C-alpha cells in the first residue's frame, strides 16, 4: 500500500459523484445553453468557411497558379499546411490510444475532444493534397479500383502510401471516436426532453443499454482498437516524413525524418489540445474535470517531444557539416543565413528555446502562460514545415534552377479558411456531443474515491 501523502494528486477534484458528472457533462449539451461565446466562435468559423469556399472555387476555376507555387517550389503552402494539420491530429490519437494502453487514467477528461480535434484536423489536412492535385475532381485516381484505363497507382511511391495512411487514419479515428461515444449517446437518449433529441441520440446510441456482457465485449474491442491505433499514429507521420525523405532533394533526403516528424506532430498536437482545453475549461467551468494536472502532464509531453525535435534540428546541422556533401552543408547555411533565415530563427525560438520554460513547474501550472507558449509552439511547428518545404526546394542543386517563393493572398486565405472549418466543426461538436466521456469519468469517479462512494480522505494538493 502507498501512503496517502505519496499518492499522485487526484485526477478529478474530490466530491464528484456519478450524478454530478453526468449532470455537468450533459448539461453542456442539454438543455440548450445560449451562450454568446459559442455564437461568436461558431460565427467566426462560419465566416472563415465562406473564405475557404471562395478560395477553393477561385482555385478550381483558375488553376493552381493562383497560389504562389512555381517551378523550383512546386509544393508551397499546400504541403506545409497538410503536414501541419495532420501533425495536430496526432495528439488526439496519442491521448486516446497510447495513454489508454499505458493506463494513464488522467486522459479520460480530455480524450473525447482531443479525438474530435483529430478528426477535424485530418479533414483539414486532407483538403490540401487534393486541391494541390490541380484537378481535384479526379482524386479517385489515387485509389486502386478496377478501371477502363487498366491503370494502377504506383504503389512504390510514398505519395501513394500517404493516401492509404491518411485514409486509414481518418477511418480508424472515426471508429475509435464513435465507439467511445456509444454509451454516452445512450445517456443523452435517456435524458432527452424532446422527441427529436430522443430519436436522434437513440439512433446514434444503437440501442445501447449498458448490459454487463455488452460492456465486456465493448471494452475488449475498445482496447484492441487502441492497440491498433497506437502503431497507426506512428506510421502516419512516418509515411509523411518519407514523402520527403524518399526524394533526393538536399535537406529532405535524410533517415531521421520519420521519427523527427512523429515527435514534431505530437508536439504541435499537444499544443493544440491545450489551446482548445484552456479556453473550454474556463468557458464551460470544467476546472473540476480538466484539472491543472492535465495541463501539467500535457506540458511534460510537450517538453519531451520538443527535446526530440531539437535533437532532429541538431542532427540536420551535424549531417550537413559531417557528411562533407557540399549541397547538404549549403542547405544548412542557406536556412540559417539565406533569404528565409527569419523562418529558421523562428523555429529555433519557438520550438527549441520556448519549450525550455516547461522545465519549471510554476510555468507548467500557470494557465495563461501555458496558453501563450502553446500558441508560440504552433507557430513554430507551422514554420518548421515551411522551412522544410520551401528552403529545401528553392535552392536545390543547380544555381541556374534556383528561385524564390512568395505566398499569394489565396495561399493565406485557404489556410485561414481551413482554420475556420476546424473552428466551426469543433464548435458544432461541443454543442451537440458530450465533450467529455461520461462513462469513463464515472469509472474514474469510482477509482478516485478509492473504490468507495464517499469523498476521499486526503485533500488535493493543487486546486486552481
Amino acid at each position: 500500500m502507498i501512503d496517502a501523502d505519496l499518492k499522485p494528486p487526484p485526477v478529478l477534484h474530490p466530491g464528484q459523484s456519478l450524478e454530478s458528472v453526468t449532470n455537468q457533462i450533459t448539461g453542456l449539451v442539454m438543455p440548450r445553453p445560449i451562450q454568446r461565446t459559442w455564437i461568436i466562435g461558431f460565427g467566426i468559423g462560419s465566416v472563415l468557411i465562406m473564405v475557404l469556399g471562395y478560395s477553393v472555387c477561385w482555385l478550381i476555376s483558375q488553376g493552381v497558379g493562383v497560389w504562389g507555387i512555381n517551378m523550383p517550389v512546386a509544393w508551397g503552402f499546400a504541403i506545409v499546411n497538410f503536414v501541419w494539420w495532420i501533425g495536430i491530429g496526432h495528439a488526439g490519437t496519442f491521448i486516446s490510444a497510447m495513454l489508454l494502453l499505458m493506463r494513464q487514467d488522467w486522459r479520460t477528461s480530455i480524450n473525447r475532444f482531443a479525438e474530435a480535434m483529430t478528426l477535424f484536423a485530418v479533414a483539414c489536412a486532407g483538403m490540401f493534397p487534393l486541391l494541390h492535385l490541380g484537378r481535384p475532381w479526379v482524386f479517385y485516381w489515387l485509389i486502386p479500383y478496377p478501371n477502363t484505363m487498366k491503370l494502377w497507382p504506383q504503389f512504390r511511391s510514398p505519395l501513394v502510401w500517404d493516401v492509404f495512411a491518411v485514409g486509414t487514419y481518418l477511418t480508424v479515428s472515426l471508429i475509435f471516436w464513435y465507439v467511445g461515444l456509444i454509451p454516452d449517446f445512450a445517456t443523452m437518449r435517456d435524458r432527452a426532453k424532446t422527441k427529436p433529441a430522443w430519436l436522434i441520440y437513440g439512433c446514434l446510441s444503437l440501442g445501447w443499454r449498458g448490459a454487463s456482457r455488452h460492456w465486456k465485449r465493448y471494452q475488449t474491442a475498445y482496447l484492441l482498437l487502441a492497440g491498433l491505433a497506437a502503431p497507426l499514429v506512428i506510421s502516419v507521420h512516418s509515411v509523411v516524413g518519407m514523402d520527403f525523405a524518399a526524394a533526393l532533394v538536399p535537406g529532405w533526403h535524410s533517415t531521421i525524418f520519420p521519427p523527427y516528424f512523429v515527435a514534431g506532430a505530437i508536439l504541435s498536437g499537444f499544443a493544440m489540445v491545450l489551446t482548445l482545453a484552456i479556453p473550454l475549461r474556463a468557458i464551460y467551468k470544467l476546472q473540476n474535470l480538466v484539472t491543472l494536472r492535465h495541463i501539467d502532464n500535457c506540458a511534460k509531453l510537450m517538453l519531451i517531444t520538443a527535446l526530440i525535435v531539437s535533437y532532429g534540428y541538431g542532427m540536420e546541422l551535424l549531417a550537413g557539416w559531417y557528411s562533407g556533401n557540399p549541397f547538404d552543408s549549403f542547405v544548412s547555411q542557406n536556412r540559417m543565413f539565406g533569404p528565409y533565415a527569419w523562418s529558421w530563427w523562428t523555429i529555433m525560438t519557438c520550438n527549441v528555446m520556448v519549450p525550455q520554460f516547461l522545465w519549471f513547474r510554476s510555468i507548467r501550472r500557470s494557465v495563461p502562460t501555458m496558453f501563450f507558449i502553446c500558441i508560440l509552439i504552433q507557430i513554430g511547428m507551422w514554420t518548421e514545415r515551411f522551412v522544410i518545404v520551401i528552403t529545401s526546394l528553392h535552392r536545390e542543386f543547380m544555381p541556374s534552377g534556383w528561385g524564390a517563393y512568395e505566398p499569394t493572398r489565396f495561399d493565406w486565405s485557404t489556410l485561414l479558411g481551413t482554420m475556420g472549418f476546424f473552428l466551426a466543426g469543433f464548435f458544432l461538436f461541443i454543442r451537440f456531443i458530450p465533450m467529455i466521456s461520461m462513462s469513463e469519468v464515472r469509472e474514474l469517479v469510482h477509482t478516485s474515491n478509492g473504490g468507495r462512494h464517499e469523498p476521499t480522505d486526503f485533500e488535493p494538493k493543487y486546486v486552481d
Partner: protein
Amino acid sequence: MAAVTNPLILSRNMSTEATPKPPDTQHLYGLAARFGTPQAVLAAARTINQHGYQRVEAYTPYAVKGLAEALQFHATGIPLIVLAGGLLGCLGGFLMLWYANVISYPLNIGGKPLNSWPAFIPITFEMTVLGASLFSLFGCLALNGLPQPYHPMFKAPRFELATQTDFFLCIEASDPRFNLAALHALLESTGPIEIVEVPW
C-alpha cells in the same frame, strides 16, 4: 452451491422440479432490482449466480470490473474476430499490391524488381490496421446484437438511470428456476433500492 451450477445436475433438477409457471409471470420479461452502488450490484450478482440462476443480466452506467465474470461470462470472442480482420487486411492488401505491380501492370521503376516487397510494407500495414479495426467495430456490434432499437428492459421503471447513476440486475422470466415470490425474497436480501417487474 458448486453442484448447483453444474449444468448436468441443474438439468436433472429441472426435470424433477420443473413446474408450470404461474399465469402472472407469463407477461413478464423478468424481475429487476435497482442498486445505488457498483459494490451492491456486484454482491447481488454473485448471490444470484450462486443460487443457480442462469439468465441474468446486469445493466450499469459504466463497465463495473468483475461484473460480467460474476455472471459467468468470460470469453468475448472479439480477439479472434479482430485477428481475422487483421489477417484479411494484411493478405488482401499485399496481394492487391503484388497483383497490380507484378501481374496486371508491370512497371519498371528504377530497375527494381517487380515484386519489391519492402516498398509494399507500408500499405500492407495500413490495410492490416484498417481490416482489424473494421472487424473490431462490426464484430463487437454483431455479437452484442446492436443496433437493437427495442428491448423489454427499456420499459422497466426508472431504467433511464441505468445509463446515468444506477445499477440494475435483471433475472429473466425464461430462467428455468424463475419463481417470482422466491426471487423477490432473495433480491430483497441483497439490499436494493427497489425491485421492479419488467413487462414484455
